[in-house]
């Protein structure tokens, strides 16, 4: 039983990172209409930036905020410099993002190296509840993710900005006529999603070591989560992230760990074929071209 609860907490912390990446993708894909294959690399850069700042002697949580700023700025540059020009041809944007992911990976390898990097456990405490040992950092990761999910959910579904955003997805030209600066919203969503990736990367390196090539693994998870939950659907991403994180965690503990990634891939193919709008319904993403 204790092992089960510990397993649950561990899985939840892994699920948190998956939720953050999935939420970023679901927002950028579903609401801004951009498929950013380099999103995993954004996460990786968030982690590497955290590692770099911690190495400079900064506190982990200061480094985390700085990493979010760095990745947010990167997202801004990528959107304004690249994706802005392919909004009407999303397929080109997709392929461009593949190029971007190759560039980012190898720039990191070039600037640092290709070996895995880790930070010392930022909290270095273990809470003991009954017989259950909970690593404090893991609990903090879950808590931070919960707060971010709540902010994002209310931002999208309750605030007037979220309303304007959803309006511009539903009907771009009408939204423009209503005075909504659609382009600016696209940039805003892209930067917000990138910041989430930066946060995810920072939290990830707080949990386990990462390499410059972690992005391509994590991007698949991110797509599974966002497509499973329905694009643009924050609730869906959270639910799917939880399910996937738990399946991953438990299969690593009890099942066949070497097949862990295969489950999520099969789930994704089946969902895309059977219900492209996701299990909970979403925007279906941008029109295919």
């Amino acid at each position, binding site marked *: 039983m204790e092992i089960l609860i510990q397993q649950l907490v561990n899985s939840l912390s892994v699920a948190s990172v998956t939720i953050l990446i999935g939420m970023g993708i679901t927002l950028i*894909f579903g609401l801004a209409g951009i498929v950013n294959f380099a999103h995993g690399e954004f996460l990786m850069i968030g982690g590497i930036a955290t590692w770099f700042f911690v190495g400079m002697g900064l506190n982990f949580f200061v480094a985390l905020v700085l990493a979010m700023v760095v990745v947010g700025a990167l997202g801004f540059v990528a959107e304004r410099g690249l994706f802005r020009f392919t909004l009407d041809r999303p397929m080109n944007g997709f392929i461009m993002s*593949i190029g971007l992911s190759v560039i980012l990976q*190898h720039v990191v390898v070039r600037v640092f190296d290709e070996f895995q990097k880790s930070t010392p456990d930022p909290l270095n405490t273990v809470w003991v509840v009954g017989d259950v040992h909970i690593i404090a950092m893991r609990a903090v990761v879950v808590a931070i993710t919960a707060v971010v999910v709540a902010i994002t959910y209310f931002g999208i579904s309750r605030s007037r900005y979220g309303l304007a955003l959803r309006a511009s997805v539903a009907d771009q030209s009408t939204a423009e006529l209503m005075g909504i600066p659609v382009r600016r919203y696209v940039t805003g969503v892209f930067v917000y999603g990138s910041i989430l990736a930066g946060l995810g990367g920072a939290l990830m390196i707080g949990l386990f070591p990462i390499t410059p090539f972690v992005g391509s693994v994590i991007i698949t998870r991110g797509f599974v989560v966002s497509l499973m939950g329905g694009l643009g659907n924050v609730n869906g991403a959270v639910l799917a992230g939880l399910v996937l994180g738990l399946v991953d965690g438990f299969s690593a503990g009890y099942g066949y760990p070497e097949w862990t990634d295969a489950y999520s*891939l099969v789930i994704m*193919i089946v969902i*895309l*074929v059977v219900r492209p709008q996701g299990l909970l319904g979403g925007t279906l*993403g941008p029109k295919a071209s």
Partner: protein
Amino acid sequence: MTMEFLNLKMPMVRGGSHAKAGTDPHSPDRRIEQIVFAVALIVLVAALPSLNIGYRFLSIAITTGYTAIALYGLGLQFGQAGIMSVGHAAMLGIGAYTAAMLSNHLGIGFWAALPASIVLAAIAGGLVGLPSLRVSGQHYIIITFCFCALLVICLTNGGSFTGAATGLDVGSIPRVLGINFDKLFNYYYLVLGALAITLATTYAIMNSSYGRTLRAIRENEQLARAIGINVDMHKIGVFMASGAFAGLAGILQVYYLRHISPTLYGAFPSLYLALMVMLGGGRLLYGPLIGAIIVNFLPEVMDLNPVDSRIAYGVALLIVILLLPGGVSSGLLAIYRWVGGLLVRRGSKAGS
């Protein structure tokens, strides 16, 4: 001249149906031009080894050759039918692993395994293509990526059957008519022959009614369906053709490298294949070849290390997509036409 330049370039940028004007087989002088160009290319490439170019250059040429064969499959499905894949290395992997497994478990050599590789890869291509009948655009690209990642997981977990993470070894190709394919020189001609067949097949497909139908589907799938084209069958057909080319490339690759492992067919090689097709341009006959040549020879010519050269590919891809969506081949064709137009005008002035 300016108008011709615009006519040529604009539809490519917009992806219009006139993009194929450059290879219109119905104009006789274009056809002569094409034949002259093809013959010149074949002579040049066939003469390469006798120029004493060295072992390293020759091995890069072989890599370029089989990569280009795989790219022609991807070029057909992307350039003609408009369906991109970022999992094409998986098809290559099916071909390569078929050959390696036949050789390891049943002792079947290159020549008997060749048709098996091609057929199995074609079937795999058709299967991976099935979801495209329901799912389109970016969603389908993500599916291809999943299939590729799945294959790598299966190969890695396949135990001794697939050689797991360390992979499999193969022997050498048996002699035919006394030709020893262990010599790089002879292997080069083998790959070259396969490439020539690939090019000819691609040309035939592009200029057949089948190719025109594919382009009709690319431009407007609903309209194509409405006028009675069996869209589903045509799509699966192009996926199978694409898989067949990849299978051929795969078996050539495995007998060249003599050793394969799952990482050769994972996400990264797939992304590079997609990158090469985009770089060269999928719609014109020589596009994939140009893409393969650029990517394989660039590090050698510019003396870049692997990390720098990958950054360079990425940057080149961004530039091509932003400025030249038809790929380098369409840019070269535009320049060629422009120069040709200048010469013709100069000539007619001198003549009058």
